């Protein structure tokens, strides 16, 4: 796990990795090989030319690796010494261990594959210098993501049941999925919603279930970045500053203790202020401020009358 390795070291590492890769994939094209190693075809030819000169001391035809790539397809013989891939480094081990943990949760409890994963995980941990468990937990089922990805590729429609957190409602929608995007640590599905006859964005972790509908959907109209009406607001934080800043995504201070921000939804704003239990005060807009006051009074009255 050496970041910004000097070129010669990165090249050496690649050369050592190339030998077993070509051995296992004899006849692969230079182009494919370059793509697999994430370098240009020109660099790959230069790598292969260097490798062509390597071998056991003596460096005669008998000791050199027998590498051929002039035809544009690569084969290698006489490379037994280097033909096994190298041991995994720390970053590779961690990536696999955590990836397996994530995968395991996506499998049904009775899946026989869980045992495979456990054994693999144990072997990887045993050879690792980290003895604690490395965990990866996601609230988005991997099977659901696969279903959405497949539907996007095949242009199938999706029947989704979606939880709107602002309205606190579950709705059933028929959508034509267009794209998965990651934004601010959350994953979103961009889709054309047949139910609403407009483009909608769905947070993956709020999709309760989804079923692919096996029909080719018509091309939806071109996606427009619809400028939903944003409303600016100002909040003042009284306590629990760290949580409040995260909740209201408030980076910039507008004055001593007031933060200004935009919101797409007054529902979200009202709920967020209530859920801050007095740690945050809505300064503007005034109509929402009044609504919060009335709502709180109403709830208070109900509590006190019971």
């Amino acid at each position, binding site marked *: *796990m050496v970041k910004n390795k000097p070129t010669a070291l990165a090249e050496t590492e690649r050369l050592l990795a190339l030998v077993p*890769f070509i051995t296992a994939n004899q006849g692969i094209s230079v182009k494919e090989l370059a793509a697999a190693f994430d370098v240009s075809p020109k660099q790959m030819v230069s790598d292969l030319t260097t490798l062509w000169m390597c071998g056991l001391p003596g460096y005669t035809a008998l000791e050199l690796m027998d590498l051929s790539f002039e035809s544009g397809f690569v084969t290698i013989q006489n490379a037994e010494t280097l033909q096994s891939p190298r041991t995994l480094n720390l970053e590779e081990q961690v*990536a696999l261990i955590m990836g397996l943990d*994530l995968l395991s949760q996506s499998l049904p409890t009775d899946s026989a594959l869980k045992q495979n994963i456990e054994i693999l995980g144990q072997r*990887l941990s045993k050879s690792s210098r*980290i003895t604690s468990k490395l965990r990866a937990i996601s609230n988005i089922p991997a099977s659901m993501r696969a279903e959405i990805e497949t539907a996007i590729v095949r242009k199938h429609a999706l029947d989704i049941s979606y939880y709107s957190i602002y309205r606190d409602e579950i709705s059933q929608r028929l959508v034509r999925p267009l794209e998965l995007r990651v934004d601010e640590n959350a994953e979103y599905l961009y889709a054309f919603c047949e139910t609403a006859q407009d483009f909608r964005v769905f947070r993956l972790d709020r999709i309760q279930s989804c079923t692919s509908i096996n029909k080719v959907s018509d091309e939806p109209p071109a996606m427009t970045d619809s400028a939903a009406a944003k409303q600016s607001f100002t909040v003042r934080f009284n306590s629990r500053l760290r949580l409040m800043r995260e909740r209201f995504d408030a980076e910039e201070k507008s004055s001593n203790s007031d933060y200004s921000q935009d919101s797409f939804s007054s529902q979200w704003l009202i709920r967020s202020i209530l859920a801050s*239990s007095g740690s945050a005060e809505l300064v503007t807009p005034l109509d929402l401020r009044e609504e919060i006051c009335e709502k709180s009074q109403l709830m208070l009255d109900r509590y006190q009358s019971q």
Partner: protein
Amino acid sequence: MSRKSERLVNLTIALLATKRYLTKSEIFRSIEGYEGNEESKERMFERDKDDLRTLGIEIEVGGLDPLFNDEAGYRIKPENYALDLGEISGTDIALLSLAAQAWNGAALDSGAHTALLKLKSMGIESDLAAIPTLAPRITLMNEELETVLQAIANQTHVVFEYFSVDLIAKRREIAPYAVGVRNGHWYFTGLDQEKKELRTFRMDRVASQIETAGKPNRFAVPDGFDLFENMDSEEPEKLAVLDIRKGKAATLRKVAHSIKDLGEWDRIEIAYGDTETFIDTVLWHLDDVVVKEPADIRGKVIDNLKELVRIHG
């Protein structure tokens, strides 16, 4: 550049192929690329050894015979060089490949990519048909992760500034035990050196760079330590009784222990950990959720509503 990498590859091949330790003079005589006077060859060789170690290749030093005035010898043991995952099937390769693909574009992307290349170099056909169609994914980037992972592996302390609940950056020194990712956040846990207690930190609340401090091997990480198990056991669960309006609060219903039909409302029993977080969640649902028990939570909700009225009035 290629001259140097060529020499490093040749050195690796020679040290791997040898059954006994090769002395420096043998290396200089037989491996291509060591040129110049004795001193410059020595310097070149020292640098090459360091470079191979940087790449994670273990070079053994040995072959010193006390009876003779021998030179030190060098070799690379194949068992230290080669990947050994034990007996492994096409299904296993498919699982490992899928695990690596989960990092596409995220924090451990480069390690996952090289791991995938190694899996594809093993000469075992990946049996994709044996596993269900799954697309696991971790989307988080993190710049500080590498430092923390190395510190856990080397058992070195890490030092950083961390935002307190009141958003004041405070210096922390911990012996890091484990990292984990859960629902969109990176976490790490370790023994806080000042408080002498286990503490869990969220990566995005770290206010500075994370730096290692002091020598390696300063502590022992408990075997099999599970960060999330530890985190979840910090708050013992308590039970609350809530009334929730029909058709509302789907997230609370999902985790309810029991649900009783009261007509327009349902009465649920639900477990909660941190009191503040629980009250925040209750209030998020506005007038669709009412706390019945316990009395102290109910009292606090009433106090908070009074405060909300006061500051917005």
